[in-house]
């Protein structure tokens, strides 16, 4: 059996992304480089033969996924798992945890201005966040962080795939920056605000 066949069989049968070194453990004669080569060959093969699926890099691993253009055909089948979608509050909470991890519940609540225990529990049950440690202070609060499952859920290759805070178009900031110099050029409070450090401490 050729390496690319072995790799293909493993990726076909796995329901989570696998890293090259994990796949290489399938056989003693197989090493990580061979797996990487095999993955490239398979990707090329699927492309040339116009398969309805391809090999995608997700959460640091490789996964066989159908191509997005076939989504419409798959939706009406009960036998095809339907991906779950998160609510607005769940997404906001997840955004805070993703960018501030490790972070405690009280901090999450301060940023959103609302209670977060229910949402965090739901996210934890769905494996998107987990307890990653305990903070200092009264009661040594639980600290949360995102999981591998988080990357898989959003199809991110790694945490670096998340949008960088400085590339976000923030309306309030943009508008204020253009208005401020004309209206109140000498406003001393302007410098007090953490304009360039939106990810820094908020206290």
């Amino acid at each position, binding site marked *: 059996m050729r390496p690319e066949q072995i790799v293909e069989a493993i990726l*076909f*049968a796995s*329901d989570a992304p696998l890293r090259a070194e994990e796949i290489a453990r399938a056989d003693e004669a197989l090493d990580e480089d061979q797996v990487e080569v095999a993955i490239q060959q398979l990707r090329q093969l699927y492309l040339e033969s116009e398969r309805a*699926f391809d090999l*995608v890099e997700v959460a640091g691993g490789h*996964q*066989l*996924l*159908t191509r*997005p253009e076939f*989504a419409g055909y*798959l939706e009406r089948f009960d*036998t*095809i*798992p339907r*991906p779950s*979608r*998160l609510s*607005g*509050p769940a*997404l*906001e909470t*997840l*955004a*805070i945890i*993703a*960018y501030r991890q490790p972070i405690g519940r009280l901090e999450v609540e301060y*940023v*959103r*201005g*609302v*209670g977060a225990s229910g949402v965090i*529990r739901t996210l934890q049950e769905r494996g998107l966040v987990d307890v990653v440690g305990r903070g200092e202070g009264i009661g040594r609060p*639980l600290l949360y962080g995102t999981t591998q499952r988080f990357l898989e*859920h*959003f*199809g*991110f290759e790694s945490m670096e795939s*998340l*949008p960088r805070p400085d590339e*976000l*178009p*923030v*309306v*309030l*900031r943009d*508008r*204020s920056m253009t*208005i*401020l110099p004309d*209206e109140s050029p000498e*406003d*001393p*409070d302007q410098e*007090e*605000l*953490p*304009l360039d450090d*939106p990810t820094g401490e*908020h206290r």
Partner: protein
Amino acid sequence: MATNSASTFAPADDGVYVIEIERFHGPLDLLLHLIRQQDIDVFDIPIARITRQFLEAIQGIGPGDLDQAGEFLEMAATLIRIKAQLLLPRPESDDDEDPRAELVRRLLEYEQIREISQRLERAEADRARRRVRGYVPPRPRAVVEETPLETTWDEVYEAALGVSLPESRVSEHRVTPRTVSMDSRVALILDRLGRGAGLPFTSFLGAGENRMHGVMTLLAGLELTRRRAIFLRQTAPFHELWLYRREDDDPEVLAEEEPA
């Protein structure tokens, strides 16, 4: 995600703004909406005006949701405190921060979180268009036929009262000393079991003895089985468990020792 569309915030006939409070994810969401909608400079928020609009908006919160009301009221209190601080004469030191600064920081930060969560939502939608090879975890099929509910509301209520709440994930594990020792139960079993005779498991449990006695008796039975002093019999699942004194010349017992 777009909870605050233009229709939720429109001047009514009498010029009063009408806001559907349920549409907002929280007080910061509402505040952000008020500021954006009126093109307010976030670094020079007219606190009195915003506070009034904010208080008007939260009039609609019903008494049914105290948690939500609390969150909005906390923000209202913050706004009023900021206004009070602005009215007080401020010392002429340069490093004194504008009372509004912390609020502005939170608003900017919250807006950024909103933006990120919208990006996440788009990424989620894109990812949802790709599917893994169809593995669906087997779902338990409901085989129970529909039966009419032959019970009274009082019985349902009583049953509901008896349901204990699920324990929290971070539960404390209490270590308590065993009130019954296994050795005492081992002695009891050996004492009561005559040669060759069998006794039902329940006969070892006296009146007034609790679950711990049952557990320790079962453990003692298993331990004695391991020591090959007794053997256990049960004709069917959930039936009575019988304990027998083991005799080495018992042909049946010897036969069981043969590897299959």
